[in-house]
């Protein structure tokens, strides 16, 4: 038996596999992690404080910068909460456009996760494939709203831009294309011996733990809890589409991978149905006053972002600015479980487990 002694290891905040500016203070004994403490806040910009001095439309671009991998869902969270409080009805065309862009964004976000995750655990080539396909989605968004990452696309009451001519056909084509790509990904990754060795049975989360820590998204579903806000607390027009909620069994990293891959397929299904049933003509904006005065009250709504439950809690005092705005950021909740997962693991599994959670630091720090 070799003599080992405890040491403190600092990981980050500048480290490629912490996916941003996360710092981990890890206590290791030999190669075994005894304790780990995430240190966050390096990207804190005070969005919630800034929002108190902005009117509701001005807040929307700030939400783009929270979860910058899926800005569309962030846009939707604030718009949806405001609309709920104002009891606005959204035109059909706008709802369809919103669903299409949100689901495409989910696919794009999962592709980034897939690429970077595999890069973390040592596979170089999937990253290139993933970014190649994600690029197509970004091009579609670029055509729709003129931005590749920070879209600022939605407004309270609808969306800013209508689909340009021929855009929907391109979306349709992309769905077909992406479907054909999926076997390639599975062929490349799913059966890969090294990948299976690195992920199966690692970082297991139990159902009780997941619920107690408030996990959501694929992190919760991989444990077998069928919880998807699009189904369980339906918003927008998701109740009109036919799709499944993929769940895992064991709650290990491989299940997370599997859930997310299935979710890409389900999202494509929704996009396809939305393009099929896209309404002819009609407005993309509801009738809203130019100065938005949100009636006095309180509202909390959660939506299903690629990372989990993205909530928006608004306390309004009847002004054009929110009295208090709070975002429930899924990454913030999901990251909390990391120390519990790392305890007793080999140091080599650190990046694998951290990557499996799929955090975006812009969202954690807000």
């Amino acid at each position, binding site marked *: 038996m070799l003599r080992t002694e405890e040491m403190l290891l600092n990981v980050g905040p500048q480290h490629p596999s912490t996916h941003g500016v996360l710092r981990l203070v890890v206590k290791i004994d030999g190669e075994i992690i005894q304790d780990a403490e995430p240190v966050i806040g390096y990207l804190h910009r005070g969005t919630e404080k800034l929002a108190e001095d902005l009117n509701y439309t001005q807040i929307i671009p700030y939400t783009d910068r929270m979860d910058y991998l899926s800005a569309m869902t962030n846009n939707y969270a604030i718009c949806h909460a405001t609309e709920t409080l104002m009891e606005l009805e959204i035109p059909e065309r706008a709802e369809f456009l919103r669903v299409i862009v949100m689901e495409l964004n989910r696919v794009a976000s999962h592709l980034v996760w897939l690429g970077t995750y595999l890069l973390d655990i040592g596979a170089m080539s999937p990253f290139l494939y993933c970014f190649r396909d994600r690029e197509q989605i970004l091009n579609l968004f670029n055509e729709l709203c003129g931005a590749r990452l920070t879209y600022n696309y939605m407004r309270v009451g609808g969306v800013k831009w209508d689909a340009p001519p021929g855009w929907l056909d391109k979306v349709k084509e992309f769905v077909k294309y992406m479907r054909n790509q999926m076997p390639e990904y599975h062929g490349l990754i799913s059966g890969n011996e090294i990948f299976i060795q690195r992920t199966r049975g690692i970082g297991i989360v139990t159902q009780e733990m997941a619920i107690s820590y408030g996990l959501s998204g694929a992190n919760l579903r991989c444990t077998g809890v069928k919880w998807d806000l699009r189904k369980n607390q339906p918003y927008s027009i998701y109740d009109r589409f036919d799709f499944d909620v993929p769940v895992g069994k064991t709650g290990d990293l491989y299940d997370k991978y599997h859930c997310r891959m299935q979710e890409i397929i389900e999202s494509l299904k929704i996009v396809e149905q939305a393009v099929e049933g896209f309404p002819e003509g009609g407005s993309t904006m509801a009738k809203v006053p130019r*100065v938005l005065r949100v009636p006095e009250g309180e509202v909390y709504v959660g939506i299903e972002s690629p990372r989990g439950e993205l909530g928006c809690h608004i306390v309004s005092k009847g002004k054009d600015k929110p009295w208090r705005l*709070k975002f429930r950021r899924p990454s913030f909740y999901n990251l909390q479980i990391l120390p519990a997962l790392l305890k007793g693991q080999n140091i080599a599994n650190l990046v694998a487990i951290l990557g499996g959670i799929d955090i975006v630091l812009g969202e954690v720090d807000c």
Partner: protein
Amino acid sequence: MSGQEKEFEKKSTEGKELEQEEKKQTESRSERFPNVPSSSEQSTAEEHKPETRLSIANQESSSNSTDQQQTSINPKKETTPPSGELKQENKEVLPKGPQAAITGKGKPSATPRPRPAAKPVKEEKPLPPSPEQPTLDRYVQLIREQVHEEAVEQGFVNRVNNHLPTLIIQSKWWLAVAELFKKHPDLAFDYVQNYSGVDYETHMEVVIHLYSFTHEKRVCFRIKTDREEARVPSVVHLWHAANWNEREIYDLLGIHFENHPDLKRILLPDHWVGHPLRKDYVPLDKEV
């Protein structure tokens, strides 16, 4: 056709509101030199909601009043709107630019009249009982029986928010209520959906939205606490998710969570002074 007219009418009134808003702002800007922030004055002027409603109604009823009136406004308009005849006379003398151009039709005086009348009626309408009312009653009853008779300060159904049962609780009863809602088999709220805090200036509130996977129910608790000595019992031992959230609320709002295992700042650096989301927080550099 008439519907469209109404919409146009609405737009033009909104435009006026905007104008007034701008005027208000320019007025307040000129007063800005004294150190008192003008926004607070504005907010006190608008503090009482019924009054603002009234003034809005007034604006609407006088939507076809003259430009003179528009220019001579003071933001808090409680003077009675001019009589209909006067309005029409003035109308002929001073045709109003934007409105006439938009509507194009000759009878703007007839359209706005029903609008102010319609609004109050809408509010007075008795609402049907909420489908969640029995759930709320049951929660209140359970708390009264098992915690304390006076533990629930107020309970209501938040209709706008998908009929969410909401309970306002004093912080001294919160721990017992939380334990009841986590452990009671008929409640079993095991999932924290949201955990945040609000500074109401008169008091502080911690807001927690819970979900029960077993019973598929949602509930919202608002825990009231004193502003100067904000203290709320920690619930980390019930829900792990509370840990970082309580640290965040402590960091940004300065609410102290009793018996929290590791209560320290989480987003801001440890040497930071003050709690930014408090309404009386003064930023070090106002330009930022």
